[in-house]
């Protein structure tokens, strides 16, 4: 360590090293180290070996390239749109990936950038803060965010049904929801999972206080397989069930919509209030609609497009997950089921997650 620092010290204090660059020949005999004099120009000046001619030429080149690229971007002139996903790219995002890769966005004159977030809770806030244009989010969370004052509007649906389920293991102690009494249930961070668990427990004649809950922050499957918890909520029926089987477990799935929770859109598109009338959004939805139709018409061909864009996802678990998901994408992403949204908002109020049911038009819209 000390010898290393001594070497680098001598290198910087030895003017011979830099004078080699100022124009002297490299073949010169090594100059003995000399003391730096006050009259010597500073090292930084002596280090620059370019004259004014080269500098002007470089500056001209930079300006020329800048002008050329500006012209090129104006020639293609596709409108940029940044879309923040809810989670790292997975088969749930197939319509978006296919729309981008198979040119549906381009046909609608959009240049869409898909970004995966570091934290599933942050995309709506980044949209509200103006950092991105569109986020993929969840209908239940949207109500919580609107309650906290985030100026968000849902303008489309990616998956128009719940994906989240309560999962136990077939060979575990839980055979029915009533068996959860006195058991431990794990969940992830998403805001409304306690309410949804409470409603499912009540549908089986239990009270929320009959189970112990643990926040697992997305480590659902390992905790379930290690039998640290007896069941988990918030696992996706098309992702975690595949994962459990892959690790040798047999999942026992309870659907929220069959056990007292009103149906809702698992994945939605949100933007901020200021972009409600933005002309890019109807074009975005039209492109996603076409991509969804293409997936429905030929799921295998669409998977090839998806896998080519995301080669790391081209494995058996993701193929199985895609097979379970391909029929679930909203065929008409722009459609808004007003009654269903209001019914779900009432559920959120009944479970005490929001104080009042907000007027639907304040947080959701149907772009036509």
């Amino acid at each position: 360590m000390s010898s290393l620092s001594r070497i680098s010290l001598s290198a910087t204090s030895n003017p011979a090293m830099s004078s080699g660059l100022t124009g002297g020949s490299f073949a010169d005999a090594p100059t003995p180290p000399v003391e730096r004099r006050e009259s010597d120009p500073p090292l930084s000046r002596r280090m620059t070996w370019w004259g004014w001619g080269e500098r002007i030429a470089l500056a001209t080149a930079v300006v020329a390239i800048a002008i050329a690229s500006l012209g090129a971007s104006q020639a293609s002139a596709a409108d940029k749109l940044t879309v923040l996903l809810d989670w790292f790219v997975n088969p749930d995002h197939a319509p978006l990936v296919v729309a981008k890769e198979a040119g549906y966005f381009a046909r609608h004159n959009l240049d869409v950038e898909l970004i995966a977030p570091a934290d599933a809770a942050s995309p709506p806030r980044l949209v509200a803060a103006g950092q991105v244009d569109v986020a993929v989010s969840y209908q239940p969370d949207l109500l919580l965010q609107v309650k906290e004052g985030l100026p968000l509007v849902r303008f489309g649906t990616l998956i128009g049904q719940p994906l989240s389920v309560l999962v136990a293991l077939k060979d575990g102690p839980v055979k029915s929801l009533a068996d959860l009494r006195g058991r431990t249930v794990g969940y992830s961070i998403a805001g409304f999972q306690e309410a949804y668990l409470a409603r499912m427990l009540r549908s089986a004649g239990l009270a929320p206080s009959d189970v112990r809950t643990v926040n697992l922050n997305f480590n659902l499957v390992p905790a379930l397989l290690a039998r640290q918890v007896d069941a988990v909520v918030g696992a996706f029926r098309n992702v975690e069930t595949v994962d459990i089987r892959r690790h040798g477990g047999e999942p026992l799935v309870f659907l929220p919509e069959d056990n007292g929770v009103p149906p809702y859109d698992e994945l939605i598109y949100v933007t901020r209030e200021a972009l409600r009338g933005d002309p890019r959004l109807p074009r975005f939805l039209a492109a996603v609609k076409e991509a969804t139709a293409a997936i429905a018409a030929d799921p295998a061909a669409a998977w090839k497009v998806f896998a080519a864009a995301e080669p790391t996802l081209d494995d058996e678990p993701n193929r199985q997950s895609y097979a379970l998901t391909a029929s679930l994408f909203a065929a008409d992403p722009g459609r808004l089921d007003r009654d269903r949204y209001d019914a779900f908002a009432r559920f959120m109020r009944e479970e005490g997650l929001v104080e009042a049911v907000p007027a639907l038009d304040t947080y959701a819209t149907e772009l036509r």
Partner: protein
Amino acid sequence: MLLLRALLVALGLFVLWQAVVVLFAPAPYILPPPAAVLAALAERPSLWQGDLLTTLSEAAIGLVAGTALGVLLALAMVILPPLRRILLPVTVVSQAVPVFAIAPILVLWLGFGLAPKIAMATIAIFFPVTSAFHDGLLRTDPQLLDLARLYRAGRFAQVRLLRIPAALPSLVSGLRVAVVYAPIAALFGEWVGASSGLGYAILHANGRSETDVVFAALLLLAAMSVVLRAGVDLLTRNLTPWAPESER
């Protein structure tokens, strides 16, 4: 006096925070005003009655366990020098592995109670203690050691009478570093599986976009760290009367 000074510093920080809020007028979900955060604290007594106590006990037990482990390791390495060649790399490896990465595994091994969080805090704390105390033990005045040998003091007597007293100031420095890391390590443990604690509260509030509650929990965490650090300072103040601190 100390308390008054702490209050004044806290007040100054609050004024700065309020000034930022007034000047830049950020949306409350980006930066909530201090009043909203204090209101969140008042509205949710469970934050300081439950979550704070959970995290505090995790950090405090981890601090005691980590200090004990660190002191024992350092003593073992000095009493049995060959052991150092084995233990020193192991302690370094234990720090090279981020607690964040092993937290999910510790939870699978130890469950969701206090145990994995205490383990995390212990892992984070023992290293600065071992490292500082070991350095201190080795840096004993060689002339004193020569003198002890002339008086035919045994190895244990040398350690007990000379090396440990000489190393106490270093131990205190190590402790002061470690105490700041203890709550963070406990928080990491809560991040991957918890039913209570400040980390749990932060995750929960983050999932519900309740930025004011996130800040309220962070405020409690900061206050806890300051109190823990002050506690260590107080406990160790008279430990080394022969090596007083001088500010001038």
